[in-house]
């Protein structure tokens, strides 16, 4: 049976983008189904009835939801060009930091960018602490995966374009090169990887979108 791979995504979702990267890095052909979350398609509602969110990978008609779960599924189904290390301890470490990225790092960075004034000052404390943990993980490495991109790079990859967009929208430089030299260097080489470079959402469009979100938060104070 011919392989049928569909990815239900939105143009801007960083969680969906990490799946695009994984599929491209593994050389897997796939069809993109663009979703408008204001008007969810029957396909989305049917494929992810529990959360009704993107991304959803549909492989030969069978849906998989939750981006980190999808990444593991892709890794286990298409075994060429592995994204996870073989050693179980290193694998555990990748999984630990991927969870950290989604549960602590991203939310703390997000809070900084939707906050104003004093609240933003307060939000900076946990965000910088979390960034420091990640900075330390790059010690002696080119990518989080070592010499090559791995699952953890994809999980943290939202930092590569998202942070600079958010920095431009708020005028706040979060990842300063002198404070986070390894992270700064990683952002550059990660963004330069061809499969990553060709997949990003249009920067101007992202800036407009996040400016609007930040304005909306400011207006609710």
């Amino acid at each position, binding site marked *: 049976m011919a392989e049928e791979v569909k990815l239900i995504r939105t143009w801007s979702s960083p969680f969906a983008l990490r799946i695009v990267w994984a599929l491209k890095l593994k050389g897997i052909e796939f069809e993109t189904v663009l979703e408008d979350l204001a008007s969810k398609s029957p396909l989305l509602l049917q494929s992810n009835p529990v959360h009704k969110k993107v991304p959803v990978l549909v492989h030969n008609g069978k849906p998989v939801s939750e981006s980190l779960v999808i990444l593991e599924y892709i890794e286990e189904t298409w075994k060429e060009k592995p994204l996870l290390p073989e050693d179980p*301890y290193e694998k555990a470490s990748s999984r630990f930091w991927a969870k950290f990225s989604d549960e602590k790092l991203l939310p703390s960075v997000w809070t900084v960018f939707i906050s104003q004034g004093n609240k933003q000052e307060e939000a900076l404390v946990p965000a910088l602490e979390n960034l420091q943990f990640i900075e330390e993980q790059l010690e002696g490495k080119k990518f989080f995966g070592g010499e090559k991109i791995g699952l953890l790079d994809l999980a943290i990859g939202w930092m590569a374009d998202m942070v600079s967009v958010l920095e431009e929208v708020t005028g706040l430089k979060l990842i300063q090169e002198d404070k986070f030299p390894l992270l700064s260097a990683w952002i550059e080489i990660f963004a330069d990887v061809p499969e990553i470079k060709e997949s990003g959402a249009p920067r101007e469009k992202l800036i407009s979108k996040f400016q609007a979100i930040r304005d909306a938060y400011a207006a609710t104070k």
Partner: protein
Amino acid sequence: MAASSTADDVKLLGGWPSPFSNRIQIALNLKSIPYDFIEETFTPKSHLLLKSNPVHKQIPVLFHHDKPICESIVILQYIDEVWTKGQSLLPSDSYDRAIARFWAAYIDDKWFPSLRQLTIFAQGEDAISAALKQIVEATAVVEGAFADCSKGKAYFGGDKIGYLDLVFGCFLGWLRLAEKVVGVDLLTETKTPGLVGWVERFSSNDAVKSVIQEPEKLMETLEFLKAMFNASTT
């Protein structure tokens, strides 16, 4: 405390009332892995905990040859990948594994927080009522997950206890306590027949029996957690 084995050299830093710690205790028992159980002191948090899990400062932490692994979901997969003799925790088919991981995320990110909301955070009739509605809905979703995953067999994992059985089963003591405290059955023959049958089978397994606590034993811990929450919000 289980006898230690220098060959495997496994230690678990955990707490008897902690469902996440229980999750790992049951896994180690199921796989017949001998380990040293180190009971965390909590107030204050031990030096060992702060050193081995500086990011979250939470139990459980598994030590294998003194190398720490944190986050119970990560630990479960590590155990499955290192100790491959005997029964596997995760299913062998990659799609079934994805489904198991999906439901594990649901249980940890949606179901359990609803239970905590009901038992610890919700204050006043309205809040408790809303929290109860949420946990009842979430439990119905888990009943659906059981039907999907078990495919008519005894456990989430099929014929044998597996990953998802541990992920959900570790909360049974707390679920029973919530039912007592609120005076509402969350698992019933009419609403959740699959889970009712499953609880009996799961709870009677030797690997589980000594680990999941009776609700009465957990009451003191609940009071302590509520007091800590109230103190932090005043």
